[in-house]
Every structure is written in C-alpha cells, then in structure tokens.
C-alpha cells in the first residue's frame, strides 16, 4: 500500500531533457524561476509558457501528466487568487450589480497574474524532478554548492545525508508495511474510530519503526567505517558529469527567453 508513494516523481525515460547535465538543469530552473518573477505583463508569461511547451515536447512527458500534479495545489491557487481579488483596487468590474462591487478590475488582473505565475512555476519545477532522479539531484546540489565550503558550510555532509535518506526510503517503507501487517495480525485496528483513536493506533507502528531505524543506522555506520569512510576530505567521485552540446543548446534557449522577458519589462 505504501509502495505507491513515489518521491520526487521521477519518470525514467530516455529523452533530450533527461540527458541534460543535472547541474545545468538545476541552474536553468533557477534562472526560470527568477525570470518568472521579473515578468510584468502577459507577454512575458507567453514567453515562459512557450519555454515550458518546448521542455514538454523534448522530455517525452506530456503536459497532461504534469497538469495532473497540479490538482492537490488547486486549493492554494484559488486561495491566493481570492485574496488578490479581495484586496485589489481599481474600478468595480460589475458596476450594475450591487453585491459584486468588491470585485475590482485591478484585483481580477492581479489574481489572473498570480494564478498564471504559480502554475508556470509548478510546471517548470515539476519538469526538473520528472526528468532528474533524486540521486542526480542531490549530486548536482552538492557540486553546485561546493563553493559554499569556503564559509564552512557542510556541503558534503548534507549531500551524504540526503543520499542515505533517499537510499533508505524503500527499505523503511518495506519495513513499515511489515510492521503494519504484524500489528494487524495481532488484532490492531487502524481503520475505524475518530481521528484521535486512529492517531493513537499509529504509535505501535512508529515505535518499532524508530527502533529499527536506529539499529540500521548503527550497522550502516559500521559498514561505512569498514569501507574507509572518513568524511569528505580527500574524496574522489565515481560519477563524472560533463557538459555536452545539449546543455549549451538548453542554456542558449534559456538565456534568449530570459533576455526577451527583460526586454518586455523595459519597453
């Protein structure tokens, strides 16, 4: 039952977008997000939307799938839109109807703006996680954050923690399933009762899970020591990333769109 959770929602297919260097993808996403916040009119959004269309067609993951991922966020989007309308200024949109006088032109415009911005933001970042495996993402993060080491920021340690966490997700999910079944076999009831009762029923799952996680951590630490782990100092990397023609093409497209958005803002 828990196996259906797919963290990061990575779709392992072969495509132009998948083959991009994860560091480049991270950088492009960052640029894209900055660009979205620089957009000041609908033409700018058109450029961003065009970019998303391009990414969609080069990633073999259809926009439909990605839009489905928006569903859980509909509430937040509507909420944001509502408040934008509520506090917007300008002329009433429906002057004849008395009780709708709180809806003003600027408010509606701002709300529409916000909705489009959020949707484009989610679409863009979704494509990052859809086309990059969590491991590659952590790897890219570690490499991009390396300069922060000067400020004694524990880049390697952070990346190692993320890698191990990702590695143990399936193991711990398996374990949780086993514990749930074991407790059910002894008559535990997880499905009935009010919220408090159900929350209480989780305790006999969480405690064995926690105990076992600590036990695993101890063994893992021993195993890592046996394999000569001694922190990040003097480490070399097995996986080497190199920028190929694809990365430069993608960067070119991004820079062009970025420039276009800035031009639209100025004129």
């Amino acid at each position, binding site marked *: 039952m828990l196996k259906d959770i797919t963290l990061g929602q990575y779709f392992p297919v072969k495509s132009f977008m998948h083959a991009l260097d994860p560091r480049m993808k991270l950088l492009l996403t960052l640029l894209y997000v900055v660009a979205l916040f620089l957009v000041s009119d609908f033409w700018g959004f058109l450029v961003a939307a065009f970019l998303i269309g391009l990414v969609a067609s080069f990633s073999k993951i259809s926009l439909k799938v990605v839009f489905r991922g928006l569903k859980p966020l509909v509430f937040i989007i509507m909420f944001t839109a509502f408040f934008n309308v509520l506090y917007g200024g300008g002329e009433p949109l429906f002057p004849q109807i008395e009780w709708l006088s709180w809806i003003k032109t600027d408010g509606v415009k701002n709300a529409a703006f916000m909705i489009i911005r959020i949707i484009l933001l989610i679409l863009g970042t979704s494509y990052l996680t859809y086309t990059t*495996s969590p491991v590659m993402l952590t790897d890219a993060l570690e490499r991009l954050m390396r300069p922060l080491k000067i400020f004694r920021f524990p880049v390697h340690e952070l990346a190692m923690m993320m*890698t191990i966490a990702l*590695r143990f997700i*399936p193991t711990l999910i*398996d374990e949780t399933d086993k514990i749930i079944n074991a407790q059910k076999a002894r008559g535990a009831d997880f499905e009935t009762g009010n919220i408090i009762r159900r929350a209480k029923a989780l305790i006999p799952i969480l405690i064995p899970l926690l105990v076992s996680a600590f036990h695993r951590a101890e*063994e893992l630490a021993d195993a890592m020591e*046996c*394999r000569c782990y001694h922190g990040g100092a003097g*480490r070399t990397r097995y996986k080497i990333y190199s920028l190929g023609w694809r990365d430069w093409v993608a960067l070119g497209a991004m820079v062009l769109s970025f420039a276009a958005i800035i031009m639209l803002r100025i004129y």
Partner: protein
Amino acid sequence: MSTIIEVSNLSFSYPTEEGKAAHRVLHDIDLKIEEGEFVAILGHNGCGKSTLAKHFNGILKADRGSVHVLGMDAGDEENLLEIRRNVGMVFQNPDNQIIATVVDEDVAFALENLGIPHDEMARRVDEALELVGLSEYRQRAPHMLSGGQKQRVAIAGILAMRPKCIILDEPTAMLDPKGRKEVMKTILRLNREEHITVVLITHYMDEAVQADRVIVMAEGEMILDDTPREVFQNVGLLHSLSLDVPQTAELMFALRQEDIKVPISVLNVDECVAEIEKLLGGGEND
C-alpha cells in the same frame, strides 16, 4: 606466508551504564591468521564471535592486549585507514550496508573514500562486479535485487578495495537457500582462486566444513582451533555448547554410541557412504 592478523591476549567488554558491572565479552584471546587461510568461527549467539571480528579491522578497540594487522597496531588511529583497506568486512544484513542507490556507485563507495582516481576506480568497479558475477546488474537499484545478490554487491564493495583479507559476519544468516549457495560459492572462489584470506563467522555447519580451519568460541573464549575434521570429532563437546555438528559426523557419532566401529572423522556424504558400505561388508555394487 605472512601473518595477516595477530591477536594477543585480547580482552574486551562493552561499556555499561554506571553502577553496573561490566560484562566481559572476550577473555584473553590469542590468535594468528595467516595469509591465504579460510578460517570459520563458530559459536552460539552471544559467545563473542562478532565482537572478536570487529577487532580485526579496528571497529572496536581492545581493552587489554593487542591486535596487529599486517604488522600494524589496530589500536593506533593512524593505521586505521590502511588496516581497513586491507581487511574488509561484510555484515549480516545487506540492506544496512549498501549506501548508494545504484549498484556500481555502491561498489565505488570505498574507492571514493580512498581518493582513487576516476579511471582506476572504473576499472576496479568492473573487476569487483565481475568477481561476484554481477556485471550485468551494475545499473540496477540495490533494493530491487534478491538477498543473495545484495550480499554479493556488499562483497563487491569490499573487493573493490583489493583487500588481503575479508571478514564475513554471518553473511548468509538472512538469506534463502539459493542466496546462501550463491554467496558461499563466491566466498570459496575468492579464497581458492584469488587467494584472499577469508574469516567466516557462521552458525551453519555445512559452511564451516568447507574452511581450512575452524575456531569454536564459547563465553568469550576460544574452545577449539583446528581443521574441520578434527573439530567435528568433538561431537559431545559441541552439543554441550548447543552447537550442531555436520549431519555425517552426527550419524557416525550415533553409530559409535551403539558400539559400531566407524571412524569419527568423516566430513562429507561421499566419505560417509564409503564407510557405511565398508561396514556392511559392502561392495555389492562392484
């Protein structure tokens, strides 16, 4: 031949809460393991065999006495990396010793830690995966593999360091019979063909029989230390330590108790069959 591990006068107890008397796990152990040997360590749960093994590469530090690996003192922090590079250790649960989410990246983990250059690393990863017969699984996710395969990935992760000695702490305890066979075959091959010293901690007698030398431990002490043939003659003693003996030795022991004259030092089924045929005035099939 040179000595890989030399333990002299080793005692150890785990730290306890204040006020409680420390329970001593190892008592005055003296032990030498020579290059190329295949040593099996047998013993009941809690007899100290895993604790002893953890001294072989400096995971635990001796309270009293000393452990030398390839002449280096394991009590000295400075030597630890070099010792661990030469004496690798594989644990019982493969899930708790695999670090990466892709097989070949996990095998490379130790090499990354040692700062091996990339080209050399790639070569050694290929070599290690080849040795355990998992070359075609290099891009798989470890949690999708069977228990036996996972344990072989763990062994490959150690082999990539090109150690002189591998210690395996009940590597087959959590595996199904098929996985056990795979792992044992790999271990035997490493010892016989690659001449890697193997220390196998186990409680399966059929595994211990395949070693050159069997050490039996109880209550933190070494009780027996001899060839399997000699060790498994002590059926009564082993039973009193609640250890099994190989089924053939068990059968011979039972026959002898009935005053039937059979030799006690019989290890495999073929030898056993031959002895019984001889006893029955055999040779009907000849």
